[in-house]
């Protein structure tokens, strides 16, 4: 009986192969596993057909509430995905290949990743990019470890306005190392610059900030970069790639290592993954970059081609001395990011960023017109802002969820004393009608 229809052999073929090997049956091939170690139970359910499998998956998806109107972000954003992204990244020559270890038969993947690295460099205004990391959180951690190696110091200072998820990932990566992570409590949704200045000295390896930050605040870190460099530390900036259509690039700010999550570049929400992490840095830091890097070179006839380069940094060669343990990355998601950016294009990204901010500013104006509602930060914002509500935001969000509106991320779970704060995200996908409905329903919820 053929239980896995993906195993193609007929009984006759199996018999021929067994005879070629010189064993009586397949079980004999498992003889090297001592009898006393063999599995005593294996309780998986019986298999099913392709049709039944898909129906089961549909039933699981149907168990989630469909059609929620998202005003939530928190690191993942509900953006448009051009149709070409699915179609082109869905070419199985891309998605059923592996890491391009053999460059001659992998130029498709290699050139695409070189183009991706170029897009990330141009977006961030920095010199070098790798071929992707796992996600935005792990990218923050990898950048911090890079700074520890480069400076030989063991202290990381983190702005408390950085995503609490990324901060937690960073701390998890570092908890068993001899590294001190110091967090600065936010001040009205912004970096407490005085507190940071008091901490900066020549024991600090890096300062990690985020722009726009978890509250949605947009800040100018140009002066901060000078201060950080003044003590010989590196400035790491976590950035939101859609916002880079409008905001000062990390390179212009003076950031040394820019990281972020690439989900908003053509990757679906997909309950949190897969997306990709990106990392870009100044050229002199390239040898300390984690992960795979594609480089340009020539073949024997002088023809341009692309290869994985600087591999001697990586785990498969340097083992425990590698710059990172990463092997598999999120290459296909990075390819989606490249296709997204190439489809939206140079002017398009500027327009897309503008559309996000216009919608968010409209929503901000309407929402703050409600009685008792104000914005936490007087500072600039992009497509997210923090509302200060006249009552506990957690209760309000729960009420609106029942109406099919994910109204925002309440901050009470993440910051002490922020129970009345709600971060509202408005992307280009939200219509005026949806925003007006949010305003109306929030008003009702606040009256309850």
């Amino acid at each position, binding site marked *: 009986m053929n239980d896995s229809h993906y195993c193609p052999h007929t009984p006759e073929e199996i018999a021929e*192969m067994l005879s070629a090997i010189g064993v009586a049956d397949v079980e004999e091939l498992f003889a090297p596993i001592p009898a006393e170690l063999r599995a005593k139970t294996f309780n998986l359910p019986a298999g099913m057909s392709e049709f039944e499998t898909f129906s089961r998956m549909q039933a699981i998806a149907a168990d989630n509430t469909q059609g929620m109107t998202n005003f939530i972000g928190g690191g993942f954003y509900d953006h448009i995905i051009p149709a070409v992204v699915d179609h082109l990244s869905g070419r199985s020559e891309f998605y059923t290949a592996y890491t391009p270890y053999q460059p001659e038969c992998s130029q498709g993947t290699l050139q695409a990743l070189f183009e991706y690295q170029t897009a990330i460099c141009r977006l961030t205004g920095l010199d070098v990019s790798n071929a992707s990391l796992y996600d935005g959180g792990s990218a923050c951690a990898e950048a911090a470890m890079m700074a520890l190696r480069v400076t030989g110091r063991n202290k990381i200072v983190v702005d408390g306005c950085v995503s609490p998820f990324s901060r937690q990932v960073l701390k998890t990566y570092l908890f068993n190392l001899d590294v001190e992570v110091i967090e600065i409590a936010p001040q009205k949704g912004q970096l407490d610059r005085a507190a940071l200045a008091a901490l900066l000295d020549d024991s600090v390896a890096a300062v990690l900030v985020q722009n726009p930050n978890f509250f949605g605040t947009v800040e100018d870190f140009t002066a901060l970069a000078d201060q950080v460099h003044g003590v010989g530390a590196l400035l790491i900036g976590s950035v939101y790639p859609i916002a880079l259509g409008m905001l000062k690039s990390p390179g212009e700010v003076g950031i040394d290592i820019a990281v972020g999550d690439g989900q908003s570049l053509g990757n679906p929400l997909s309950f949190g993954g897969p997306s990709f992490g990106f990392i870009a840095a100044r050229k002199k830091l390239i040898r300390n970059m984690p992960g795979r890097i594609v480089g340009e*070179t020539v073949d024997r006839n002088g023809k341009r081609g692309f290869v994985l380069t600087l591999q001697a940094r990586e785990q498969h060669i340097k083992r425990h001395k590698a710059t990172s*343990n990463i092997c598999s990355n999120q290459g296909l998601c990075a390819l989606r990011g490249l296709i997204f950016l190439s489809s939206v294009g140079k002017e398009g990204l500027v327009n897309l960023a503008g559309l996000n901010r216009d919608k968010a500013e409209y929503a901000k104006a309407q929402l703050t017109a409600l009685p008792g509602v104000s914005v936490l930060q007087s500072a600039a914002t992009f497509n997210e802002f923090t509302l200060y509500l006249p009552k506990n935001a957690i209760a309000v969000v729960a009420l609106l969820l029942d109406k099919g509106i994910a109204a925002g991320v309440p901050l009470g779970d993440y910051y002490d004393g922020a129970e009345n704060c709600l971060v509202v995200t408005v992307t280009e996908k939200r219509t005026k009608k949806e925003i007006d409905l949010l305003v109306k329903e929030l008003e009702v919820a606040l009256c309850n």
Partner: protein
Amino acid sequence: MQLIYELSVPGRRGLKLPASDVPAAVALPEALLRKEQADLAEVSELDLVRHFTNLSRRNFSVDTNFYPLGSCTMKYNAKVLENAATLFAPFHPMTALLPGGVDFCQGTLGMLYDLGQLLADITGMDEVTTQPLAGAHGEMTGILLVSAYHAARGNKAKKKYVVVPDSSHGTNPASAAIAGYEIITVPTASYGDMDLELFKAAMTDEVAAVMMTCPNTLGLFNPHIKEISDIAHSHDALMYYDGANLNAIMGKVKPGDVGFDVIHVNLHKTFGTPHGGGGPGSGPVGVKKSLIPFLPQPRIVMDDDGKLLLETTNKGSIGRTANFFGNFGVMAKAYAYIIMLGREGLIQVSEQAVLNANYIKEKLKPYYDLPYDMTCMHECVFSASKQLEHGVHAIDIAKFLIDKGYHPPTVYFPMIVKEAIMIEPTETESKAAMDAFIAVMIEAAQTAISNPQALHDAPLTMPISRLDETKAAREQNVCCSG
């Protein structure tokens, strides 16, 4: 081929954006704005489609070529899995973290919980976290769990080392080093696995964990694995199982039964999800009861009524290794794969993976040196040492295979085999496909004798010939400057 940026024409547009239905906002202050626009491509949709379609045609892939890349388990990726993953595209992960949000996400949380249960049964573990995003990420997560375990028992300062065999994947020592441990490497004995006597000598109470791949990277099952595990436990060291080679043993042996305490599983290897040209993968980590208190948060738990909840306040947890719940889309594919194949199907997967590897091993043995000549599991490792006598290296054989339409096996790994050629056919290849591959491998061996230069010149049929990797490493042109 031109770069997408070389196709770019100023002012050309590839996508129409939605028109605005709100008033334009007052611009941000100048100091916050970007001075120079990012110089992204400006191409039409058709230009874009042709570019990436033509790029894709410059790749070998499982769907176009036999891809026996050892250690990577390049099996066929069923198309229904792709369809299944798209069902979950619209679900925002933050929804589950909102107050009362789990009520709206019972399907996705339930699938993750079920996947954990299925993987726990396959591996003999008690609980699985689905958060790690790839195999190496799982390794790091697993070793951090080990360190939390030792710390909770007051042994943080004492436990300094992680032991690995010299045949291990490079990720093992790299992950342990990132998690703060020093590495002790134990050489391989003539029987093809970690030398038991040297292992015993290396073991002290300062060892935190022993990381093993079983079957190992030579494709061999270690007959001493239980003894190794008992010795490790006698020193209060935990046993870590690198699940990269799990495809060989499903239903046959459970790592948990053998004494392993923590394991990662590569869903993109064993459970049929595509490799994506390098990723995304997914590396769920299974643990024994003793490590459950340290699992990452949010942890998905089920209450007495069968409702899925998120545990987010366990102070003993190592924290978080990813922003949300892991690579959900990849896990949806793996879950569909497991329920579709079921118990008998997965057993058959391992049986035929092992059958195929042994078939290739026997057929090629007369032509290539087989340094460890014994029954293998899902992969076999040859050496090109016979061919080297004619000046032909493993890499030359690899390039010859490319000209014949085969993705080469893994070469030069494991490092303990000189001129290694590591072949993993997987269970999805037909006998006819393997016979054709075997014939080409024999042709390569014969050509090594008759015309070694032909192998040095290969490949000749690809868009490019061999590349100057030294130039790439010295010049470091990693982004288009034009």
